[in-house]
């Protein structure tokens, strides 16, 4: 396969992973109003879990990398473990971070979780192999199609697109369900929602854990493709790429979110590859992050409704009720 085809395939796998992330964040942020500034941690947890269950038993201190609970699980157990890891960590974090408090405190607590997680992982060698991370992660179809995912990128692409479509479809369906509607009520007015009988604590934890599961799954999908897991790649800033994508595409609108994902983490972050290299290696990466930060700030300044804003759902008419002329979209 040519270099170009490989490149495009890789981008599309990333796209599938990012769409999963963006859907998960949009469910939490766009629907439930939970500002998960620690999103990347749950994705990283899923990735780590997937890595250790496909790497095989750990060789212990003597081997070149250390980790816990090595195993060699077949598909789909690896991804289920990844999702479970994301969900479990979300649950634990959610137990304290989702307590009733000012929203900015809540966001700060989640950001702190993500800053601290990075420190712990980098420093704890027996558990996470320190800042070197793990390498040699294979993909679940090794015996059938070849040793690594990168050896069979087309297959892996189809595999990840199918998973992405199924999971995202599920997230979309849940968002449109009465449960998703309850989430929006909670987002709009917490006190009123609980005064109407919604259990806010439980709803928030549900959406946090569900989103965490999707995040973990997406992490697993990613790590099996790139074959390596290193803490440096899961910095707190990664979360904000996805947030920016959601802002650009349209908060609360999944089609918009997909477009935003295509524009921000894929097209925008890939453009520098085609520009002549400047400065020392790594300079463009740093500058990219600066631009992401600026884009984020511009989004907040101009508060765009995104390319496709959240859509108004028209009320289904009950039988025997006269139809009034529908109001104009986006009135008042």
């Amino acid at each position, binding site marked *: 396969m040519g270099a170009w085809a490989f490149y495009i395939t890789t981008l599309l796998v990333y796209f599938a992973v990012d769409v999963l992330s963006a859907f998960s964040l949009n469910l939490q942020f766009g629907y439930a109003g939970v500002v998960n500034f620690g999103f990347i941690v749950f994705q990283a947890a899923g990735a780590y879990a997937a890595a250790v269950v496909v790497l095989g038993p750990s060789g212990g201190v003597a081997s070149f990398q250390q980790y816990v609970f090595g195993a060699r699980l077949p598909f789909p157990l690896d991804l289920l473990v990844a999702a479970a890891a994301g969900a479990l960590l979300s649950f634990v974090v959610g137990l304290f971070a989702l307590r009733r408090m000012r929203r900015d405190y809540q966001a700060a607590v989640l950001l702190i979780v993500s800053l601290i997680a990075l420190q712990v992982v980098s420093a704890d060698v027996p558990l996470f192999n320190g800042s070197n991370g793990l390498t040699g992660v294979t993909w679940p179809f090794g015996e059938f199609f070849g040793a690594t995912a990168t050896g069979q990128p087309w297959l892996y692409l189809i595999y990840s697109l199918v998973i992405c479509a199924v999971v995202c479809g599920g997230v979309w369906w849940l968002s449109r369900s009465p449960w998703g509607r309850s989430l929006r009520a909670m987002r*709009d007015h917490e006190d009123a929602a609980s005064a109407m009988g919604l259990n806010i604590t439980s709803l928030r934890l549900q959406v946090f854990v569900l989103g965490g599961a999707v995040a973990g799954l997406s992490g697993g999908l990613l790590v099996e493709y790139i074959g390596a897991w290193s803490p440096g790649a899961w910095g707190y800033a990664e979360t904000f790429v996805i947030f920016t994508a959601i802002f650009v595409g349209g908060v609360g609108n999944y089609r918009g979110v997909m477009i935003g994902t295509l524009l921000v983490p894929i097209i925008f972050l890939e453009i520098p590859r085609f520009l002549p290299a400047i400065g020392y290696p790594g300079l463009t990466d740093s500058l990219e992050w600066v631009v992401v930060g600026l884009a984020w700030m511009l989004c907040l300044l101009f508060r765009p409704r995104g390319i496709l804003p959240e859509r108004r759902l028209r009320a289904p008419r009950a039988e025997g009720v006269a139809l*009034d002329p529908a109001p104009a979209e986006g009135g*008042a």
Partner: protein
Amino acid sequence: MAGQLAVDASSSPETPAVGSPPVLVAKGVGVGYGGVRAVDDVSISISKGEVVGIIGPNGAGKSSLLGALGGQVKRTQGVITLGDRDISSLMPHDRARLGLVRTFQTTSEFARMTVYENLVTAAEGDRGASLRSVVLHPRQTAQRELELRARAWSIMERFEMTHTADLYGRELSGGQRRLVEIMRCLMRHPRVLLLDEPMVGVAPHLTGKLIDDLRGIAQEGLGILIVEHALEVVRKLCDRVVVMAFGKVIAAGEFEEVVRDPVVQAAYLS
């Protein structure tokens, strides 16, 4: 049937009965914010079919009392019973599920949901919208959705709000927001309704209709506790009036005798 509102099967329409057992009872309720005692040893009871008004100057503790009853504000002392159940330490949503619902002083419509969605969401708080029932019992969920749809439309018709069904909460006028809050409460088949200044923002020529509506709702067997500033409204609407000042009940009884009470007049003038 338009204009007819089904309330609990147990609470068939009846005239406000003097001496019928109270449905909501609060005994010795206190609320404190730091050192401030916003509500101090307040006792109050509401019977089925009865409209009780709370009046009092600003900062008297009326909203705090409603908060303590609804569970939004932490109570420092006292016991609250709904029917024969002690609800003092229940979470707000559990109180709502037992039939105690409320509106807020600053309107609390779901701003980015349509009026229709506001109504339907309110009704399915208990079981209908749980993740488990949505995933495991899609058919029941769909069935319930149909029931709620019919109920939502009939309530909107009763309040002449069908034309706003597709408007977002944030697109409504102040008065319409008040109506949405009340309609939302009614979606839940409440036993007791707590209203915090529901007439604020309602156009003057519509208050008469709202008073009639609320009286009609009470006739169907609800207890209503209403905080209201306009004495004219209180006079027309309430069976009994409770006057609060500085966190305490300073008078209670029929409107006419209460407003003539020198203590009350002093509290209002000071």
